[in-house]
């Protein structure tokens, strides 16, 4: 089975495995994290055709032929994606375990809604949990990113 990840095609053995496991174990894309494993924390967020999904409850078979983007697929020629840069500038993390999920979800939010209000940001990101409680800085980073993009 072929998966399109970050612009490259990868031959993988699927057998009804979760996309998260294939990304981490077979493709060594370990920027995608496992937190809860049941859809609640957002650590495993990837973009599928630009929309956020939990890779912990998505079968690889369900996303063949679609474009999957992980955190590793964002930088261009050594430059961070503007959302990554904004998270760095605002110090929007402590341990950073949640950061890949927050960055990808923010990219999807800004695609849907380029200038979201604080409430719209809070609502869209409400399914991403930060165990370190960096929420205020994350909010600042999303606002900074929305001005940059």
């Amino acid at each position: 089975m072929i998966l399109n990840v970050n612009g490259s095609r990868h031959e993988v053995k699927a057998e009804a495995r979760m996309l998260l496991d294939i990304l981490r174990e077979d493709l060594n894309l370990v920027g995608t994290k496992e937190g809860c494993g049941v859809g609640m924390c957002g650590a495993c967020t990837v973009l599928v055709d630009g929309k956020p999904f939990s890779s912990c409850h998505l079968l690889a078979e369900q996303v063949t032929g679609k474009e999957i983007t992980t955190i590793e697929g964002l930088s261009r020629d050594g430059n961070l994606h503007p959302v990554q840069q904004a998270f760095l500038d605002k110090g929007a993390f402590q341990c950073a375990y949640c950061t890949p999920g927050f960055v990808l979800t923010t990219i999807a939010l800004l695609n849907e809604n380029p200038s979201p209000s604080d409430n719209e940001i809070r609502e869209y990101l409400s399914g991403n949990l930060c165990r370190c409680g960096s929420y205020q800085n994350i909010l600042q980073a999303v606002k900074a990113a929305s001005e940059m993009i």
Partner: protein
Amino acid sequence: MNQIKFLEPTTFSEASTLLAERGDDAKVIAGGVSVTLMLQQKLISPSILVSLGEIVNGDFIRLESDGLHIGALAKLHDLERSQIVREFCPALAHTFSVVGNVRVRNQATLGGNLSAADYAADPPSMLMALDARVQVQGAEKKREIPLDEFFLGFYTTALESTEILTEVIIPKPARAAYFKYTSISAEGRPCVAVGVAADFDSDLCKDLRIAVGAAVETPQRIESAEAMARGQTLTDELVAAIANEYSLTLDPLTDVRGSAWYRREMIRVFVQRALEEVRNDR
């Protein structure tokens, strides 16, 4: 979970025929939010997954003379943002927007949400209040089931083992409201879900349907309590009396989101708020 075949029929009748041929070995997967979690927890071990993901035109959203028609494969996130749904019934669009988180809503289908018959869900109560019905495709024939008769118990519906939910049909409400009460976290599953649809002739209530879910095994209406409003002005006293009827008549369950006692109190509060909203929304 090795050796699971993933089949992708392109029509509902093909999917239903596959179910008829493969019997208990086969499991339908739509968005797969529940199915993947059941697989991981080894609650199911099918040898075949019949995916509805490649069904052609299974996710339409269409206004017809008898109401809104939604294909079973429409994603909740698309429904919440659909201009057609928002104009048809803002409370319905709102209901879809409060399900879980944005990742769940991108993956979850309306047909899957209803077929899962999880009691801790949002769309079932709103859609029952709206008097929605579902179209079902069997191996041999199609039929229609009113949502009032669809939910039979925990994770159990009126669907036969070879039947597939293909479409949801929703008559246009005059006014509607949906209240989701969460007790643990804002984005969590509902502790109490209240859907209301009502029609008024100036101040007089002509028709009222209230469905309460998430606090009970399946969404439930109490027709005698609904009837208290017919032909009446919804005064604060009448609203409180109807809310009280729901609170006292339903037999709530206890789980992590609240005890039976607590839910009884919250049913009273949220039926009252939902009734006030339809009364005041003019």
